[in-house]
């Protein structure tokens, strides 16, 4: 399909087009947009209670403050805003309704109870402080373990026992296989509560076009199209009259793949007050109200044979949904994800799961990079190590014995999900080689009990569910997530090309990578392609940017659109060249006669005819213009796979963890821009190191978040990051157009389990059983001391 002689752009380190303006500080992020002079600013009054009844709200003092235009409570808002209800069509799901401002009852600290509209953001904040709310505090269910009980306070009256979602599955022969196995290895894993924490907090700006009676809505989001549909439904305002634009987005990580109450309020008040409205949150609000993630408990039981092969696996998963189902992914996303993805690259033929999402009086949880996969692979990979320890078999060997073998591919897993291609064994083989695994094990065996540093090695073999199409979302009940993405190509009259993509990048470099894809598939010079996305007025509809889907879904759409448009270009070129269309090949913005390559016409010449701008008439039967829109629905999912292998040193006295070696062998299928791919992996790994070693959102027993600031919510700094050795295997997808498999989440998915296993391995000789995150020194020391083998810190 790509012309023989066309110089390839896919696979090249093409420097990013986004860089020059960002490096000059000219990237226009939400708060950089110059708002009109008459703009009003919002500030929300937030609940100080995790659970309380609202008895009265007094807004007089706030309203009286000079500069304040209005103050709204839930009652006011209810007149023109519908509740947000996350539709998920799956058995066992109980929807929770959420008003954009809390009505009657608050369910987490930080939930909005009122909003101030003022002429200045400082005044808006002052006024929000003046809102007086009488609360009757109620008992709160804060911790997952507490909320998951018969006696727990209810988060929603109509959701018994706080179970927002419950599902179970067993493969036909599970019970027999489980019962007949030689032995059972089981473990409980507890993951920590973390958040995406993009460096740019959330915000939006709503402007009215009074002539067209329409709404121009700028928002720092990953999902402009889904946000537009949601706004239309919740505000009951016609969708064609809403234009959502994502400006430059300062990091997303899934945090901004949710649609939030503040977006509704900002848009609603602009429509209601007929004034521009702007809202930008501060970091405390960001940490209190942007989705949290990963607060899970996995109870695993593996029935194994004497050689460490898993004959049957049972997962019991409990996830913390928070107070409401976030939109659009809801409380089921992590619960279904963890239960379904955990079988990973392993040939597990008998499987059963029971999974639940439990409501708590905490911030709603949602789709943070990797979703449940960093957690479920921490669990299954932790179990692999335990199988090895139990049987005295090296854990790498245990994995080798359980991996799906190359000759089994394409492989349909126990849940009926197809893995088209992969490189599970080869990734592990190479990773072990690059990390010098067997020599490390030899040296480790020679370590002494009085060494000051304990060294361990951890492995994570994983598959990643990526690029999911409509089928993939429907399987999980997420019927409001379309699954397809789209591309619109216009060869303009001048012969240059405009490519509009239904995505919204937050640093992934789409302006560069989609130009690369189009360059190859349309036969156009990469510099002749201009890419634009994130504006619903120009870009075609799509599912947008999350879940490692950009390259797969939109990349496929670009290819499909290019294939369609190149036929028309070729036909017009054939007419001009006076040859059969089969002889025309498109390369470097020209159409050439394959049999006589010096005969060619360039895209401009073709476009001039298509747009009726020359004396040559359009050939009979052709329509005017050179543009096409194509939607592409990827397969159920694409399946990148990788192995991370990590060596750590743990100081016996301080329990400080140092990462000494970090190896990744990654297979994302065909790579579009290896430089950008590596960047995605680096970033994911470091978020994973954070999640494993330091990050944790801490609520006290009353549901107060104790660390809603960046001093206390610890994230990795440059000094925490090791050298990262990445190598690639490229096994193209055969199910997805272009062979791309997606890469956004792989880094974090591999890092959390690999780092955890490395620390657990280092501490194994002390007898400590490491099964919960984060691996902070206090926890590690406690576990080591429990076995009384840690060197006393005072001895030196």
């Amino acid at each position, binding site marked *: 399909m790509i012309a023989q002689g066309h110089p390839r752009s896919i696979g090249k380190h093409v*420097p*990013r087009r*986004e860089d*020059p303006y*960002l*490096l*000059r*500080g000219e*990237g*226009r*992020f939400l*708060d*950089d947009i*110059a708002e009109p002079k008459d703009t009003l600013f919002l500030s929300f009054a937030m609940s100080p209670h995790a659970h309380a009844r609202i008895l009265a709200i007094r807004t007089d*003092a706030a309203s009286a*403050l000079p*500069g304040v235009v209005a103050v709204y409570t839930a009652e006011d808002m209810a007149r023109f805003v519908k509740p947000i209800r996350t539709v998920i069509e799956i058995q066992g799901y109980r929807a929770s309704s959420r008003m954009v401002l809390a009505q009657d009852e608050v369910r987490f600290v930080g939930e909005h109870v009122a909003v101030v509209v003022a002429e200045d953001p*400082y*005044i808006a904040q*002052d006024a929000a*402080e*003046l809102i007086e709310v009488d609360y009757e505090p109620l008992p709160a269910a804060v911790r997952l373990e507490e909320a998951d009980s018969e006696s727990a306070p209810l988060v929603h009256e109509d959701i018994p026992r706080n179970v927002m979602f419950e599902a179970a599955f067993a493969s036909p022969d599970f019970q027999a296989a489980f019962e007949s196995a030689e032995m059972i290895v089981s473990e409980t894993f507890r993951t920590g509560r973390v958040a*995406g*924490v*993009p*460096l*740019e*907090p959330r915000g939006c700006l709503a402007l009215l076009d009074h002539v067209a009676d329409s709404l121009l809505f700028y928002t720092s989001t990953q999902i402009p199209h889904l946000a537009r549909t949601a706004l239309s439904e919740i505000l009951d305002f016609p969708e064609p009259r809403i234009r959502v634009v994502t400006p*430059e*987005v*300062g*990091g*997303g*990580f899934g945090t901004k793949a949710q649609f939030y109450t503040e977006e509704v309020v900002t848009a609603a008040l602009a429509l209601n007050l007929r004034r521009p409205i702007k809202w930008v949150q*501060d*970091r405390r609000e960001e940490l209190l109200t942007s989705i949290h993630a990963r607060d899970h408990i996995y109870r695993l039981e593996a029935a194994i044979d004497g050689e460490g092969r898993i004959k049957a696996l049972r997962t019991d998963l409990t996830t913390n949904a928070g107070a409401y189902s976030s939109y659009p992914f809801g409380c089921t996303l992590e619960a279904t994800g963890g239960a379904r993805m955990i079988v990973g690259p392993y040939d597990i033929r008998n499987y059963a799961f029971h999974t639940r999402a439990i409501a708590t009086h905490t911030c709603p949880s949602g789709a943070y990079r990797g979703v449940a996969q960093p957690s479920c692979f921490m669990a299954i990979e932790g179990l692999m190590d335990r199988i090895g320890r139990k049987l005295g078999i090296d854990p790498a060997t245990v994995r080798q014995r359980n991996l799906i073998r190359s000759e089994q591919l394409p492989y349909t897993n126990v849940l009926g999900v197809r893995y088209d291609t992969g490189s599970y064994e080869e990734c592990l083989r190479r990773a072990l080689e690059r990390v010098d695994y067997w020599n490390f094990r030899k040296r480790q065996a020679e370590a002494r009990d009085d060494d000051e540093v304990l060294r361990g090695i951890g492995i994570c073999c994983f598959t990643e569910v990526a690029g999911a199409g409509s089928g993939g979302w429907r399987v999980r009940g997420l019927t409001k997530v379309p699954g397809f993405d789209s591309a619109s190509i216009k060869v303009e009259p001048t012969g240059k090309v405009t490519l509009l993509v239904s995505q919204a990048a937050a*640093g*992934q*470099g789409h302006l560069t990578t989609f130009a690369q894809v189009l360059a190859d598939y349309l036969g156009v010079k990469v510099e002749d392609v201009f890419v634009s996305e994130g504006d619903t007025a120009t870009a075609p509809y799509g599912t947008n940017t999350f879940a490692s889907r950009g390259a797969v879904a939109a990349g496929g759409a670009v290819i499909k659109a290019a294939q369609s448009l190149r036929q028309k270009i070729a036909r017009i070129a054939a007419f001009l060249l006076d040859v059969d269309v089969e002889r025309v090949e498109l390369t470097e913005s020209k159409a050439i006669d394959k049999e006589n390559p010096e005969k060619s016409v360039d895209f401009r010449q073709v476009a001039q005819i298509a747009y009726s701008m020359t004396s040559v008439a359009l050939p009979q039967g052709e329509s005017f213009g050179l543009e096409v829109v194509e939607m592409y629905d990827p397969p159920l999912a694409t399946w990148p796979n990788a192995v991370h292998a990590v060596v750590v040193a743990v100081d016996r006295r301080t329990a400080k963890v140092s990462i000494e070696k970090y190896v990744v062998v990654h297979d994302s299928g065909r790579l579009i821009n290896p*430089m*950008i791919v*590596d*960047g995605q992996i*680096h*970033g*994911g*790994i*470091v*978020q994973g190191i954070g999640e494993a070693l330091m990050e944790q959102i801490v609520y006290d027993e009353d549901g107060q978040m104790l660390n809603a*600031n*960046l*001093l206390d919510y610890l*994230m*990795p*700094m*440059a*000094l925490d*990051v090791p050298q*990262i050795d990445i190598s690639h295997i490229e096994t193209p997808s055969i199910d997805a157009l272009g062979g791309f498999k997606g890469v956004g989440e792989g*880094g974090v998915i591999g890092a959390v389990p690999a780092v955890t296993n490395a620390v657990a391995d280092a501490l194994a000789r002390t007898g400590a059983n490491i099964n919960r995150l984060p691996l902070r020194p206090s926890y590690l020391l406690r576990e080591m001391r429990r076995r009384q083998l840690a060197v006393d810190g005072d001895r030196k």
Partner: protein
Amino acid sequence: MSQATSLRKTDVTLTINGKSYTRQVEPRRLLVDFIRHDVGLKATHIGCEHGVCGACTVRIDGRTARSCLHFAVAVQGAEIETLEGLSADGRLAGLQKAFHDAHGLQCGYCTPGVLLTAEEFLSENPEPSEQEIRAALSNNLCRCTGYVNIVKAIANAARDRDKTTADPAGESRK
């Protein structure tokens, strides 16, 4: 609380990137808001407003500082430099190129602060070790790159500075 807003505005004059700006602001006006919203220079970003993330890093009288931790009135008369100024006079050209070549940025939100930290660091330590670069970056949080390519870009910029003579434009400007 309400008296806070009735506090009288005062004239604050700052020199930003060589140009003098006088604005009437409340005493509590943050320097970063003065720069971004009163003057309209948007390269300086706000990430946390409590002095941790470094996205708001500027130079105050020649030293990098967090503009979210200063009140505009408290730096009355100071010379402020932001990314716009350093970029326009070419002092950042080498670093900007190094970041572009090494893919040292993704979303670009932390980048202005990182560039200012790196520029000051390299002017004081022209031949840094990797560990020194990482220590210098303790001023700045980045959530996208994992710092890997930021460290590489700064190391490359230091190496390339050695080869060429320092850009005289930056020196002569003051």
